[in-house]
C-alpha cells in the first residue's frame, strides 16, 4: 500500500516533470536549430518564420497524440469491429446489425433508452427551470440551490445505493424501512417492490438520474435567467402582463438557446447511462439499456463484434447533436 502511494506520487512527478521537460526542451531545441537572435536580419526573419510553422505543433503535439490513441483511432476501430465476429478477426458483413434487430434484449434496450430520452431531459429541464425561477425570489435561494445541486457531486453508484434504500421493500407485516414504502403505508396503500415491477420500474430508475441532473439544469438556466435585461421585464410589468405571461412570453423565448443546450447535454448523458442500471437491476426485469447491454456483451458475452455494434448504435444517436454543436461553434467562433 505504501509502495502504491509512493508510485502514485512518483508518477505525478514524472508525468508533470516529463511534460515540463518536453515543452521546455522542445522549445529550446527549435530556438537552437533556427536561431532568431544573434544572426543577420534576413536569416533571423527566415528562422522566425520557420519557428512559427513548427511551434504550434509542439504545443498541440502531445494532446493530438493522446486524442488520436484514445478517441479517434478507437472510434474508427469500433466501426470496423462492428462488421467482424466475436474476436474481431473475420469479416461478417451486417450480421451483427441483423442480430441486433432481431434480438429481444436489444429491442428492449432500445425501447427503454427511448423512454429515458423522452422523460429524463424533459423532467430535468422542467424541474430545473421551475426551481431556478422560484429560488430567484427568496432570500435563502442560494442555500436551496446549493442543496438541490449537491447530488451532481455524487457518483451514480452512490446515488443508486441511496435510492435503493429509499425503494427498499420488506415483506408484509414487517416494518418498512424504505421511506417510499413507509409513506405508501402511512397513506393506506400497500408496499410495492418498486424496482422489479416491469415497465414502471424504468421510471423509478429514471428518478435517480433526474435527481442528479436537475441541479445541473437549474444552475445553467438560473444564470441564463439572470442574464435577461431587467428593462424588458419591467416594461412588461408596466404594460400589465401577469407573472405567467412574463414567464412564458418574455423569459422563455430569451433563454431558448440555453434550454436547448441543457436538453442536449442531458440527452447525451442519458444515452450513456450505465452505472445506474448495473447497480440497481443489472438489466433484469426489463430495465436494460444500450450502455449496459454493451458492457454485458463485452465482458460476459465476450463478443466484441456485438459490443461494437451496440456502441455504434449509441453513437448514431449522438451524431446529430455533434453536427449541430460543430456548426454552432464554427459559426460563433470563426477566429476564436
Amino acid at each position: 500500500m505504501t509502495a502504491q502511494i509512493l508510485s502514485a506520487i512518483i508518477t505525478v512527478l514524472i508525468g508533470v516533470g516529463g511534460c515540463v521537460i518536453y515543452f521546455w526542451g522542445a522549445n529550446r531545441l527549435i530556438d537552437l536549430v533556427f536561431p532568431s537572435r544573434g544572426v543577420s536580419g534576413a536569416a533571423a526573419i527566415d528562422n522566425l518564420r520557420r519557428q512559427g510553422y513548427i511551434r504550434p505543433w509542439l504545443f498541440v503535439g502531445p494532446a493530438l497524440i493522446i486524442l488520436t490513441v484514445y478517441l479517434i483511432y478507437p472510434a474508427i476501430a469500433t466501426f470496423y469491429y462492428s462488421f467482424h465476429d466475436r474476436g474481431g478477426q473475420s469479416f461478417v458483413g451486417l450480421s451483427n446489425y441483423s442480430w441486433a434487430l432481431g434480438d429481444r434484449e436489444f429491442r428492449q434496450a432500445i425501447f427503454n433508452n427511448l423512454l429515458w430520452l423522452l422523460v429524463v431531459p424533459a423532467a430535468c429541464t422542467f424541474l430545473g427551470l421551475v426551481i431556478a425561477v422560484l429560488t430567484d425570489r427568496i432570500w435563502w435561494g442560494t442555500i436551496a440551490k446549493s442543496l438541490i445541486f449537491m447530488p451532481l457531486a455524487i457518483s451514480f453508484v452512490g446515488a443508486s445505493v441511496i435510492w435503493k434504500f429509499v425503494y427498499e421493500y420488506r415483506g408484509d407485516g414487517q416494518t418498512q424501512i424504505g421511506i417510499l414504502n413507509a409513506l405508501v403505508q402511512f397513506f393506506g396503500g400497500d408496499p410495492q417492490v418498486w424496482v422489479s415491477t416491469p415497465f414502471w420500474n424504468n421510471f423509478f430508475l429514471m428518478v435517480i438520474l433526474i435527481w442528479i441532473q436537475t441541479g445541473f439544469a437549474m444552475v445553467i438556466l438560473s444564470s441564463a435567467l439572470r442574464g435577461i435585461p431587467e428593462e424588458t421585464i419591467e416594461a412588461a410589468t408596466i404594460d400589465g402582463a401577469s407573472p405567467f405571461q412574463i414567464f412564458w412570453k418574455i423569459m422563455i423565448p430569451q433563454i431558448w438557446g440555453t434550454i436547448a443546450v441543457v436538453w442536449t447535454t442531458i440527452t447525451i448523458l442519458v444515452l450513456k447511462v450505465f452505472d445506474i442500471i448495473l447497480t440497481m437491476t443489472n438489466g433484469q426485469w426489463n430495465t436494460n439499456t444500450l450502455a449496459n447491454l454493451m458492457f454485458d456483451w463485452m465482458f460476459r458475452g465476450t463478443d466484441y463484434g456485438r459490443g461494437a455494434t451496440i456502441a455504434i448504435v449509441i453513437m448514431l444517436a449522438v451524431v446529430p447533436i455533434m453536427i449541430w454543436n460543430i456548426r454552432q461553434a464554427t459559426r460563433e467562433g470563426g477566429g476564436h
Partner: protein
Amino acid sequence: MARSPGKSFFGRFGVHIAVAAFVIIWTIPTLGILVSSLRAKDQIVASGWWTALTTASHTDAGRLGGAANQVEKDGKFLIMGNLFGAGDSRTLTAFGIKAQAPAEFPAGSVADLGDGVTLQVNNDGSYVMSSPVAFEGDRARRIYYAASIPPDFTAENYKTVLLSEGIGRSFINSLTVTVPATIIPILIAAFAAYALAWMRFPGRALLIATIIGLLVVPLQMSLIPLLKMYNGVGAFFGVPAKTYLGIWLAHTGFGLPFAIYLLRSYIAGLPREIMESARIDGASDFEIFVKIVLPLSFPVLASFAIFQFLWVWNDLLVAMVFLRTDADQMVLTARLNNLLGSRGGNWEILTTSAFVTILVPLAVFFSLQRYFVRGLLAGSVKGG
C-alpha cells in the same frame, strides 16, 4: 428579476413552501444513508431511519427462571432474575402473561397470577415471582413485555466498513487513480489550448472542430479497441494489461477534449493587448504562455481540475474496464457495486460504504462550489 409576481402575502408564502418542498425531496434520500450509517445494525432493520431520534418501542417475549432457581424466604418461594441481559439499554414499560395482552400490567406493578402467585416486573427488566407453595416442574414460565429502545448511535459501522469490508483500501486506490488522472491532463491541455487560441497554423480550425466533435463521442466507442490494445501491449511486453498507468492515461484521453475546450474558450478571451505588448517586448510564445497565460488562467484550471477529479472519482465504467477487481486495484465505486451484490440486505454496511464513497466529492463540492459552477457555465453555455 422583477419582484412583481408573488407580491401578495400568499404568493410569497407559496414560493417559500414550494422551494422548501423541493429542498426536502432532494436532500431526504442522502440524509437517509447518513443517519442509517450512524445507527446500530439491529436498529436499522427494526425501524425506519426517520425515527432514529425518537424512542422506539416494541413487544417481545421472555422466559422466567424455572423451578430449579427458586429460593425460600420468609415462608414464600421466590424466583428472581432479569429479562434483559447485561448492557441492554432497553426500558421495560409494561408486561403481560398472555400473548393477546402483552402489556396488561404497567412496569413495577404486581400482577396476580392466581393461587396466590404474584409477579412483579420492573423497568430495568428485573422480576420477582413469589408463591406460597414451592414451584414445581421445570417448565419455565413465558411472559410478554413492551420495551422502549432509546436512540442508539454508533461509529461501529464505519470501523467495520473501513477495516474489514475493504473500503479503507479502496479509498486509497481511488486516490491513487484520481490524483494523477487529474493533474496529468491539465498541462497537456493548457499548451494545446493556448496554441488553438493564439497561434495561427494550418489545420487549426479543423482541429477545433474535431475537439468539439469529440466532446460528445460516447465513451463506449473507445472501450473495445482500447481493451484489445491494452491486452496486446501487455502481452507484447510481458507486463500486466491492467495497471494504474493504463487507467491514468485512459482518463487523460477521455478528459482531454473537455479540458482543451474549456481552457481554450477562456484563454481566447484574455485581453489581446497583454499578449501583443509582451510580444513587442520580444517574448516568445513559450514565455508568454508560462509567464502570462498560465497565471491568468488559474480560475479555469481550477474549474477543470474539480471536474476531472469528480468525474474520475465517481467513475465506475472506466475502472471496471481498465483495472483488475482484486483488493489491490478495486476503487470505491467498484467496491460499492460489489457490496451491493454480496451484502444486499446489510444496510449498515451499504449505507456506511456509500457515505464514505460520497464524502470526498461532497467535501470538494461544498468547498470549491464557486469554481465548479463557473466551469459548468463556461463548459456548456457557450458551446453546448
